[in-house]
């Protein structure tokens, strides 16, 4: 089925200029890549016709294997086969040890506190493992679309915190893909679904995958998808159903010793297929005999329902909270959409229907809907402009705050605030002559610092010495459209910009990324200068194109003839420089052109704002000025 039919407006981009863009659903269990081709967004298959790529990476002494071939060895070679790596993204070694016996790998810490998994071909970080999955998908797309991708949109659970988002972006950088945007999975699903149905109103997206649960409420109005509220649990999913069955089997078998990693992996794989079998069958016969655990018997749906009921109830509770946060009544929700493999479980469908008071929709394949929505958004962002009217307005998923006295967390931006957002918080010194201050950035809803995630600690230095309480230090939180935070600070009574160094609590440092890039085979073989030249050309090409388009659209309306000519000359000049081999000259030229066009950019933005309010086009508005 064609999921989406996109009609191209009159000024559709010339097919030769069409950019290659893709949406990637980087899932805990399975990953997919989709693209808009001939106006239709669809997932891309590999050579064997498989759309879903199991998110499994196996490290062997002779190379790296990704997908089904890796999954096939997940039990036999569990130490070197990384599954569900998404659960480790943006996590510190400490967080991971609390996941405990669920993970069969040996971990060691890197300098930045990020865990490394020990494999036969060396230690790898979760970011590197994710980058392998991305590479595999991107290679598939390049082959299908006959050329390199110009940009991708990667989806993340709405509930992902800053560290998890940053780690996902790092993985993309490592895989060498141009990431246009991180997109929340439920929002992606809403795009695929909402445009398909063409309806307006509030949509609830219930996404239960392998490792995560997400609930999002979106309002679709005037072509704008506005996220009203989002919630969920980044550690709740079908894997937990598997664990519940595994625990049941162990209990039934009477096996009392602690389980070894290979035993556990085998048991979980068996439990998963039993669970999936119970979706279409009232009971499943089990004959398990592996590594000393022995059980022969039957698991029926009623017993299974009892095992997983608390897990499903926990998801419903998160729905309650989200509806409340959105400030809407249940009755205002027009449609409920199911996303993720675990929404095939009958009890899930029943409980969702019961709570929302209407049968949920699953007409769009729950496995593919996220990738498809991401592809639509990627197509818009890359500049193919298939549908100028569509826009996404997202929110911050988890509150951001700072540590204050007594180990308490003080919220600076609360969850579900529309992004991009900015907030300033004022602090003062508590000692005479104090010149430095420690700032601890947190994310989460709880009151105690220890219950929140630590995002970064930094020291504010260079505060002019004054009596206690006289210095006014303003800490600014900036959250961008991807939901990523940056922090800056200054002393306001004297105007000194205080020096700050943000050290991510668990992220990779820039140096680490650079060295990983250099170490990776692909990049090591390329001459560094050659790479710089290519990058400089891509960037200059981007600026030339952007400015060219802008001039064609609004130049006559907003600029004097002589200004237009000057900019056009500057564009031509940069074009000539870019043909040369001097990457420094190209970068410099790009920078110069960027600066020369700043005034024009400001005029365009002002005109756009006037246009929004007047509901007329720029040329008309401009004549009145």
């Amino acid at each position, binding site marked *: 089925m064609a999921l989406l039919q996109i009609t191209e407006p009159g000024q559709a981009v010339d097919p030769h200029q069409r950019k290659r863009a893709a949406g990637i659903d980087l899932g805990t269990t399975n990953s997919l890549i989709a693209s808009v081709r001939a106006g239709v967004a669809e997932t891309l298959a590999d050579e064997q016709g498989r759309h879903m790529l199991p998110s499994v990476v196996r490290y062997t002494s002779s190379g790296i294997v990704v997908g089904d071939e890796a999954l096939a060895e997940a039990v036999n070679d569990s130490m070197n086969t990384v599954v569900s790596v998404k659960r480790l993204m943006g996590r510190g070694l400490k967080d991971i040890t609390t996941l405990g016996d669920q993970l069969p790998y040996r971990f060691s810490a890197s300098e930045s506190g990020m865990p490394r998994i020990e494999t036969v071909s060396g230690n790898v970080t979760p970011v590197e493992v994710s980058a392998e999955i991305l590479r595999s998908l991107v290679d598939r797309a390049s082959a299908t679309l006959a050329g390199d991708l110009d940009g991708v949109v990667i989806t993340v659970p709405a509930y992902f915190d800053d560290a998890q988002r940053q780690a996902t972006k790092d993985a993309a950088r490592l895989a060498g893909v141009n990431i246009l945007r991180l997109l929340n999975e439920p929002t992606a699903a809403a795009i695929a679904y909402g445009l398909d149905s063409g309806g307006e109103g509030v949509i609830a997206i219930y996404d239960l995958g392998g490792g995560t649960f997400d609930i999002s409420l979106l309002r679709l109005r005037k072509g704008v998808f506005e996220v009203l509220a989002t919630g969920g649990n980044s550690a709740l999913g079908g894997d937990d159903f598997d664990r519940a069955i595994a625990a049941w089997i162990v209990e039934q078998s009477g096996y009392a010793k602690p389980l070894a990693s290979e035993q556990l992996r085998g048991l979980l794989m068996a439990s998963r297929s039993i669970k999936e079998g119970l979706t279409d069958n009232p009971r499943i016969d089990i004959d398990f005999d592996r590594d000393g655990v022995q059980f022969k018997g039957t698991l029926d749906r009623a017993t299974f329902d009892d095992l997983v009921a608390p897990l499903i109830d926990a998801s419903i509770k998160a729905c309650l*909270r989200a509806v409340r946060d959105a400030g809407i009544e249940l009755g205002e929700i027009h449609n409920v959409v199911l996303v993720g493999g675990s929404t095939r479980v009958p009890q899930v469908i029943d409980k969702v229907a019961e709570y929302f008071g209407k049968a949920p929709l699953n007409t769009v394949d729950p496995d593919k809907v996220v990738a498809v929505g991401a592809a639509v958004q990627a197509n818009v962002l890359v500049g193919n402009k298939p549908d100028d*009217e569509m826009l996404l307005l997202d929110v911050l998923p988890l509150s951001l705050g700072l540590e204050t006295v007594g180990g308490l967390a003080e919220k600076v931006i609360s969850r579900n605030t*529309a992004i991009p*957002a*900015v907030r300033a918080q004022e602090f003062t010194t508590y000692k005479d002559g104090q010149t430095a201050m420690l700032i601890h950035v947190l994310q989460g809803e709880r009151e105690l610092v220890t219950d929140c995630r630590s995002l970064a600690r930094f020291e504010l230095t260079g505060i002019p010495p004054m009596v206690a309480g006289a210095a006014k230090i303003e800490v600014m939180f*900036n959250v*961008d459209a991807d939901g990523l935070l940056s922090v800056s600070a200054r002393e306001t009574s004297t105007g000194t910009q205080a020096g700050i160094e943000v050290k991510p609590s668990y992220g990779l440092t820039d140096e680490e990324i650079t060295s990983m890039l250099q170490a990776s085979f692909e990049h090591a073989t390329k001459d560094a200068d050659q790479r710089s030249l290519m990058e400089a050309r891509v960037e200059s090409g981007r600026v030339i194109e952007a400015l060219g388009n802008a001039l064609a659209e609004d130049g006559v309306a907003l600029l004097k003839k002589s200004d237009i000519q000057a900019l056009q000359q500057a564009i031509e000049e940069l074009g000539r420089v870019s043909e040369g081999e001097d990457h420094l000259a190209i970068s410099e030229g790009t920078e110069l052109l*960027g600066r020369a066009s700043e005034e024009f950019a400001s005029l365009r*933005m002002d005109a*756009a704002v006037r246009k929004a309010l007047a509901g007329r086009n720029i040329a008309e508005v401009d004549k009145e000025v």
Partner: protein
Amino acid sequence: MNFNKNYFEIFDLPVDYAVDLKLLDDRFLDLQKQVHPDRFAAGTDHEKRLAMQWATLVNTANETLRASLPRAIYLLGLRGVELETNPTLPPGFLMEQIDLREQLESIEEGDGNLEELDSFRRKMQQEINEVQAEFKEALDEDIDKAERLVYQLQFLSKLMTSANRLEEKLLDY
């Protein structure tokens, strides 16, 4: 580039305590459609920066005008009134606040009666509405009084938040 417009001007709305929320909502969407960074994903760095600043400003302005308390505080700010962090309030009002807080605590300590909590919240909302109406009048006639009323609104809204928290707790959200 004019980042110095006030929040009402940004949405081309009259500077007034009464806001047409539907109109605000429409204009908010229209503006974001024009200035959101996603519109400039293929643009120059300067365009991206401008878009980010505008989208942020539009979000902040929308939040400020949407809810009545921040809107009231913002209107006072436009008239040059900066709120105090520890204002002195009329003793009668404070006594009433203490009384209300005690009521809320007794609802919590009793077996957490949802109906009682509901009627408590309705009563609170009514009082908030009354103070708001007074504020609207005072804003143009007696700015000092308007300032005092905002302090009262701050108190009431804090209490309302506590009541909502209690409801979440009772419903076990």
